[in-house]
């Protein structure tokens, strides 16, 4: 017997339509797991006297300015980079989306308040806020996530508000509201699925931002400078762009990061195709 259909798409149908998206994400997940396992057996990421040596037999991707092996770094950085990026991007998007919904949905004080707070966040330099935090706290991993999410949400809130203003003025939203739907329900069921590509894009954008921001934090004393991320490796390469070393210092982490973004975009697309039932709907 078929499962009784539930309001939200039905488990079975999800599974059925998911297949391509599922394959894709499963592959990505598997790759992640393999990477994680690899990291266990990787040689340590230590400094050594072979500084800036080009790729070769000993160091497949060469070494950086203090003799650390680039390949080891790339692999070791993968779980942290990907994990932090995914989580931070998600929290920033969540906060941004909720506040944008408040700004778009509630007229008057609350909505205005959100925008005014966004104004203030735009005005006050984030380095100031981060330095203040650095003076008071030494955040752990979750603190870090929260900190970055709290200092990036305002990037998303205005564009999201513009989009939500449009979506919330749709008849289906007003009608569902009349039928007694709550705002959270509307956002989750009516608005978000219709905005999937945009949410995915903002998510990806946030992920880039997160990777770069985490890398920048070590200079403010918020994280240990040895916290290894692709963004950090890219930043360390900056001093050597004028030299041949940029080829093996910049390109590998930049390549990993773009591949990650591209995969993220791909997963977003496939998830949408399966979840919102849009496939090649355009011409």
């Amino acid at each position: 017997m078929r499962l009784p259909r539930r309001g939200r798409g039905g488990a079975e149908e999800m599974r059925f339509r998911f297949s391509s998206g599922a394959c894709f994400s499963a592959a990505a997940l598997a790759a992640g797991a393999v990477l994680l396992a690899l990291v266990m057996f990787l040689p340590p990421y230590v400094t050594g006297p072979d500084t800036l040596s080009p790729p070769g037999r000993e160091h497949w991707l060469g070494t950086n300015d203090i003799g650390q092996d680039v390949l080891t770094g790339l692999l070791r950085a993968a779980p942290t980079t990907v994990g932090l990026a995914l989580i931070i991007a998600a929290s920033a998007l969540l906060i941004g989306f909720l506040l944008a919904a408040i700004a778009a949905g509630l007229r008057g004080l609350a909505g205005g308040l959100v925008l005014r707070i966004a104004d203030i966040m735009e005005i006050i330099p984030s380095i100031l806020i981060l330095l203040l935090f650095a003076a008071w706290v030494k955040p752990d991993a979750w603190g870090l996530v929260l900190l970055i999410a709290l200092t990036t949400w305002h990037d998303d809130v205005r564009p999201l508000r513009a989009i939500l203003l449009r979506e919330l003025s749709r008849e289906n939203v007003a009608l569902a509201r009349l039928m007694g739907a709550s705002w959270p329900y509307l956002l989750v069921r009516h608005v978000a699925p219709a905005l999937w590509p945009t949410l995915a894009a903002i998510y990806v954008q946030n992920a880039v931002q997160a990777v770069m921001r985490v890398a920048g934090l070590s200079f403010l004393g918020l994280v240990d400078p040895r916290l290894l991320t692709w963004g950090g490796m890219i930043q360390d390469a900056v001093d050597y762009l004028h030299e041949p070393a940029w080829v093996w210092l910049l390109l590998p982490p930049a390549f990993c990061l773009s591949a990650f973004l591209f995969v993220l975009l791909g997963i977003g697309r496939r998830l949408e195709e399966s979840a919102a039932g849009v496939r090649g709907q355009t011409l």
Partner: protein
Amino acid sequence: MIQLEGAGVRAGETVLLQDLTLCVARGETLLLIGQSGAGKSSLARLLAGFLPPAIHTFSGSARVAGVDVMRASASEMSRLRGRRIGLIMQGLADALNPQMTVRAHIAEMLAIHQCFGVTPEQVCAGGNIPEHLLDRRPLGLSGGEIQRLLTALALIPRPDCLILDEPTAALDNVNRRLARDAIAQGREKRAQILITHDPAFFAPIADRVAVLDRGRIVEEGAVHDVLTSPRHAATRALLRLPKPKATKRARSAGQPVALNVSGLCHHHGARCVLHDLSFSVPAKACLAIRGESGAGKSTLARLLIGLEALQQGEIRHIRKASGARTVGYLSQHPGRSIPGHFTVSGTVSEAMRLVARGTVRERISTHEVQRAVETVLKKVGLSAETDFQNRRIRTLSGGEVQRVALARALVQRPRLLVADEPTSALDVQSQTHVEKAIALAMSEWGMSVVLFSHDGELIARMADTIMTLEGRGLMTEESASPPGEGVVERSFQELESTGDDCLDQNHWRD
């Protein structure tokens, strides 16, 4: 010009069109009729190159103006569209660029097709579009206004092939006639396919009729032959005159009032749309409101259910015992009122859950919902199969969406149903389903109905009271005559008074 040979289209597993062989030559107008969901719009989209190859598989061949539209590249197709082939799509929701004024829409087409001598005002006059609309943006345009504009726009390029998908569904009689005249003009120079649920009305300007049933052409022939002596059962079903209601409900004297409107005024900006309206609808009764396009019917409907903020006056609804207000609403643009990513069952069950939450404040069991969904889908003449239930709204045909919207309204068991053009996209058969479903609801739980429609016959069959919105919202009220001949007569008279070929129309129906 348009030539189909064994053309077939599948979307995944579903067969949309099958083995179509059809030819429309220059100067010929083909009427394409068929049940709701038969594949008419799909055929239109195929010919204009709007079926994305990513999700559709094609077979056979389809040539338009010498180009094989099944295999043409996107850029080839975009070169074809405009001068060579034009298409008016079926839906009116979101049919115009919301950021552009009406004038910009027209000016743009004029500029593209180098009609330098023509001003937007002239185009308006030609399409019976009031000039005060020129500087409006599409938001808030009435259904008929959008439709007239779309037709006017489609005719500007004078394309070699023109496909019109329900070009008059949202128009009142006067405008319908004007639209027909416009479509008739210059038809001898182009191949034209007219998709309609009202073949009789278009018969005078058509040469041939093709009948589509479940993706196949089951009958094709000269207009007169097919309409007068249909051979295929599907055709007969399509042309059968709906029987007038056999049992008329008892007059609703002494019934409590379900809806009371008094002193209602509504302005859009400086324009007064409704002025000092007062009426009431007793329980179990049906009030039909008609009026020409742009008279303010949809505005009134939206006011009644609370989608539009009340400016002046009073609207009072009967309430359920729990105090919850349940008013069902059937939008003129069902596509606007249901998000495209919803599934059919999701749409219907959502309404049920939301209403249940508002009233009983307890979760209804999944099974119960499932049963109710199936029942109501069947009632409105839709399939209750799981496959269909799991389909996304955006893949449904125009008539199907309309009926899903009705199903959603009915599943809430509302006290009052506000139905804005509930049958505009429906064929005769589906229309009957809809009427029956509404009638059943009226008798089953005493639902009252406010019906907005251009369709005189529908009004005649359903209404207890008829009102006409005229001009600046003045309202005249008349009691519907007793059921039976009287009603039909009235509508005949009405037709006679407005036009010349009403007899034609009735003639074809006999």
